[in-house]
Each structure stands twice: as C-alpha cells, then as structure tokens.
C-alpha cells in the first residue's frame, strides 16, 4: 500500500496541487514571491546583490524582507547597517518568533539576520528546516517579496532554501571557478521535480559584453547537458568602490546612486521586478512552506 503525500497537512500532496488550480473567482491567498540568491562558490556577491536589490525593490513600492540564510557567514545585517537584537539563531532555537526576529533596517526592507550562533549548515537538522519553512510562510503573508540570501555550495540545507523560492538569482563571476560551481547548482536544480526559475546575475564584469558572454556560455551548457533554461538578469561591473566601502556607509544603490554599478543594479531591479510581477499574476502556486517541506521530506 502506498502512503499518501502528507495529506493530513494542508498544502501538500498531489491533490492539494490539483485543488489549487481553482476557478478564478475563488479568492486565493496572496503570498510573497520568494527569490533566492544562490551561488556555487562563495564571495561572488550574493549578499551585496541581495541587499541592493532589496532596497531597489522597496523603492519601487514593494514590501520587501530579506532573510539571511547564509548560516555561519551571515553578513546582510552589516551591509544594511543594522544591528538586530535577535537573529536566525533565536528563531531556530525556538526562543523567538519570526515576528520578533524580524527587524527594520534604515533603508526600508525588513531583515531576518543570520546571526553568528550557527557555525555551520551541518548543525541544522530537518526540525530546524521545518521551523524555517514555517517562519518563511508567516513572513510571506506580510510581504510582497522575500529575498533569501542563501549559503554558497551544495549542502542539502542550502538547496532546501534555494528550492523554497520561485526564482533563483544565480550570482556568479566571469571566472571559470565561479562558473563551474554555479553550473553545479544549476545541474542540481535541473534534477528537481519542482524547480524554480533561474536568473543569472553576473557580478564583477570588466566590460559590458562579458556579462552576456558569460550568460551565453552557461546557458548553452545548461541547456545542452542539464536541459534547464536559464534567463539573463543582468551584469554588475567590477567597481573598486564596492570593496572599499566601509561599515556604516549606505549601500551602493543609495550611497552612490549615479555610479555605473548603481545603474546596473537598477537594471537588475527592473528585470527582477518584472519577473516578480509576472509570477504574482499566476494563481495556483504552492506556498513557500509547502515547497520547503517537500524538499525536507526528500532530504
């Protein structure tokens, strides 16, 4: 006898998916669109892009929350210039609710800080991931967009957070090491039943064509070997001003709004917003908690 797919819990199971194809006249819950920022290799600029795109989306009138899931290496709160009292550590320890952990930032978006109490992804078990799924679901009810800053690499915990999203912004650099690692993540995504849409953001390009060329190469390989199409979100130029920025300074998009990097970032914001609005117009998507729990069960 075959067991059901957790029909006891709403939001899961084949049938649930089926029933969500409801007639348009039925009201459906508006849940936030979840966008994950991922990369295969560390140091590609995920947190930089996450914070700046969050600010850009906030400027465009969307309610945005950033969830720093780069466990052990969380630094989004530093880029936001925030010093939240509670962090993911308190949430996953069961000491605080998601609403208590959620903190405002000086630049608009709200933040769930990663904190430093979780030294590595390996510390997180299925129970923690379930708590995170629940927390994200609660957040999703309050915001238009959730941006998840994921940990680099191919740890299961990281992939679960990536697969919680409807869109994955794959952040890479033009160098071959970052490219192969990004492709490894794409290949893993291609093997999933419910895969997010993959957008490629190429960071630190030295000229305007390099971003597109990097995308063309990765897209070709991804299409050829993994049968997964990826989309081009945009490129951000190499800018010494980014690495020279100090703590306490405003994020690039606000601190130097007229520089080339900020213009490129605004282009990314526009492209991402278009994807978000496109996804919001489609009824019947499963919730973030359901998507995560599906992956946690497969863990």
């Amino acid at each position, binding site marked *: 006898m*075959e067991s059901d797919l957790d029909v*006891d819990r709403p939001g899961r199971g084949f049938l649930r998916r089926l029933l969500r194809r409801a007639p348009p006249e039925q009201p459906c819950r508006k849940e936030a669109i979840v966008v994950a920022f991922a990369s295969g290799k560390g140091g590609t600029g995920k947190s930089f892009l996450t914070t700046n795109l969050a600010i850009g989306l906030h400027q465009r009138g969307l309610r945005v929350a950033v969830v720093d899931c780069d466990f052990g290496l969380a630094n989004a709160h530093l880029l936001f210039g925030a010093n939240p009292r509670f962090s993911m550590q308190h949430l996953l320890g069961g000491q605080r609710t998601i609403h208590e952990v959620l903190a405002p930032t000086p630049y608009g978006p709200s933040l769930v800080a990663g904190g430093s109490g979780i030294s590595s992804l390996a510390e997180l078990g299925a129970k923690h991931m379930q708590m995170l799924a629940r927390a994200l679901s609660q957040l999703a009810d309050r915001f238009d967009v959730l941006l998840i800053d994921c940990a680099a690499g191919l740890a299961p915990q990281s992939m*679960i957070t990536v697969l919680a999203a409807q869109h994955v912004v794959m952040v890479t650099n033009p160098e071959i090491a970052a490219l192969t690692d990004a492709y490894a993540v794409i290949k893993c995504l291609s*093997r999933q039943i419910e*895969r*997010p849409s993959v957008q490629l953001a190429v960071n630190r390009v030295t000229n305007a064509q390099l971003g*597109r060329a990097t995308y063309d190469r990765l*897209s070709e390989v991804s*299409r050829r070997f993994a049968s997964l199409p990826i989309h081009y979100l945009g490129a951000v130029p190499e800018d010494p001003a980014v690495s020279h920025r100090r703590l306490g300074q405003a994020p690039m998009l606000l601190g130097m709004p007229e520089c080339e990097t900020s213009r490129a970032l605004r282009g990314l914001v526009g492209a991402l917003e278009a994807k978000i609005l496109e996804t919001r117009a489609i009824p019947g998507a499963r919730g973030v908690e359901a998507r995560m729990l599906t992956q946690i069960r497969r863990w």
Partner: protein
Amino acid sequence: MIRGPVFPQMRDSLWSLVSSRLDSIESGLKLVLESLDCSDGELGPVDGLARDATGGAVLVMLAVDGDALLAARALSAGRFLDRVGDALAQAIPEANFCQGVPGRILVIGSESSANAIAEVCALPINGLHACTLEPFRIAGRERFAVRWMPVAADLAMEQAPRADESREVEAAAAPSQPTSSKPEFTSSQPEFTSSQPEFIVPPARAGLWEATLSVCERIDHAVMVHGDRYSRTISWNGNVLGDVRTVGGALVASAATGVVRELRDLRDVRRFGDQLLRAFVHSAELDIGKGHAADGHAADPSHHSGRNGASAATNGRSAAARHAAGDRMETPTGESLRSSLAESKLTPEEYSALGEPASVAGSITGASLAKDRS
C-alpha cells in the same frame, strides 16, 4: 407453484446465471434466500430475497417472456414490502437486514422479456427497479451487460419537488397538517452520465460524495463516473482510476493504486483524491518520476500530453501550475535530495564546455537577446 405459461428451463437457467452474479448486477447485492412467497401461493413466489449494500431487503424477481403473472406478482411484492418490510429484519435475522432501510424490488430479465419488464416498469410500485441482461460472447467466453430500465416511480420522483411545493403551500394554510417524511437515503445530484441508476448515498455522506465528484471533475474533463445504485466507477479514457461503493451505510473508496479506505470526512476524500490523481497520472503517462530531463523532451511541455491525449484543458492547467512555480519540467527523479546533489558532479564534457573560450561558447547573439526579451 403457479408461474403461468413460461418455459421452466429458461427461468431456471436464467436464475442460475443471476443468482450467482447478483453482485455483478448491483454492487453489494447478496442472495439470502430463494423462493419467497408474498401472495399466499396465488401468484407464485418471488425468486429470491437479497440484501443490498445498505442492508436493505431486495426482492429479486425474474422476468421471463410469457410470464402473464409477472405484473401481478410485482404488485403483490410491493404490497408485501409495504406491509411487512420493516419487520423483515426481525423475521429473517440471518439476512442481517438493517432496521429502517426501505425494501426494494428488483426485476431482472433478458432482451426477450423486454415487453414484460416494460409492463412492470409502468406500475406505480415503490422501490421498483428493473434491468435487462444482454449476453454477448467475447474471446470465447460469455458475458452480459446490465441495462437499467426507467421505471414509473423514477418519473414520479422527478415531479416530487413540485409536489413538495404544493405541500408547503398546504402546510402554510394548515400548519397542523403533518408533512411527508423524507426518504432514508438520498441520491446524489451531480452526475457525469444520466443513463444509469441513481447512486444511493447515505445522507450523512452526501457531502463527501459531492466533494469526490468535484475532485473527479478537476482531474480531467474526460474523467467519467458511472455505475449502479451502490457503486460508482471512476475512469479516464477507459482506465479505471478507482471506485466508490456504499457498504452498510458507509462510503468505501478504492483506488486503482490499491488503496482502500472509508470516506468519513473531507480528509479521507482528499486522500482518495490523491490516489485517484496518482492513478490518473499513471494512466495518462504523466508520471513525473519516470522521465529524464536530458532526453530531449524536457523543454517541450506538449510531451506531457499523455498516451491517449489528455484534454487540452488539463494540459493548460498543468502548464499553468508548472509555470506558477517556475520552470517545472520533466524530472528524472523520485531520488532524494542528497542523491541529486551527489549526481550534480560535473562530467568532463561539462567541464570542457564551460572551460571553452567565451567566443566559442557563444557571444552576444540576436537569438539570446530575443529570448531574454520574451
């Protein structure tokens, strides 16, 4: 025994066929006793007494061509049920009848007795049902199809709402006047096909059956629900997805996946629907766990259309649902997350392709720009 001028051998052969296959004629119908005399020997006995899926008594009568007393015997059986139907539970304890379930009369005939059956069907007998068996041979074996006949009582029931309305008017005029009682079991309203007997659902389970029908409607437009009074088979393009039966006042659902469960609440309906969908996915060859992303079909949503061509509406809905969560396509897996991570190691060919100069792998092309704009 007075049976009129009929051919005994025909009746006997028909009875031997019917008595052993009552369950094939109506789900859950079981023969309890043979030869029940309802008319003090004047009209001859009813051929059998059976118990149906709800625990009600069913008088089974054979209609044979030339049986002049068939109509009279049916009327007599109807009066018998009216008189002592409620007492049969105590009178025949071995039958295990359920108290309070109204009795019925089932007239079974063959094509040659169609005239006799039509005559009986025209009689105003409560609880009368009639069917003919149409035998045919296939692969050297004889089988029979059951064709249910419309009866006068059904037509009367269709007019019942108007009668109820008039009763309400009368009741308003004279509040002390008692109104008629409702039947114990109700038939479900929405059905996919009309040329079949009403599905008798216990009142407490009527909502669950409607929810089940709603699920069936949502699976695909080609899903059919058909059957007899006490069972409904759910099928898609000739593939049985499951069935629902009335058994002793309960709804029991069995899916083609092998899962059997009683439908007691909406959660059970969801579980059953889950299994129906699995069976549908299997029948339509939409099994998302069996494809291969690298087989060249992955990017083509039309590949999901199935062997027999699932309806375009279904494909459209499926595509919308896939798109809602991103680029969902065929997947290679029922594999675990860990194993898919392990399988993500790059092959030498992939390394090679990624390591080629950008000018070789592709520079800015009109095609890629157009694709991104779209």
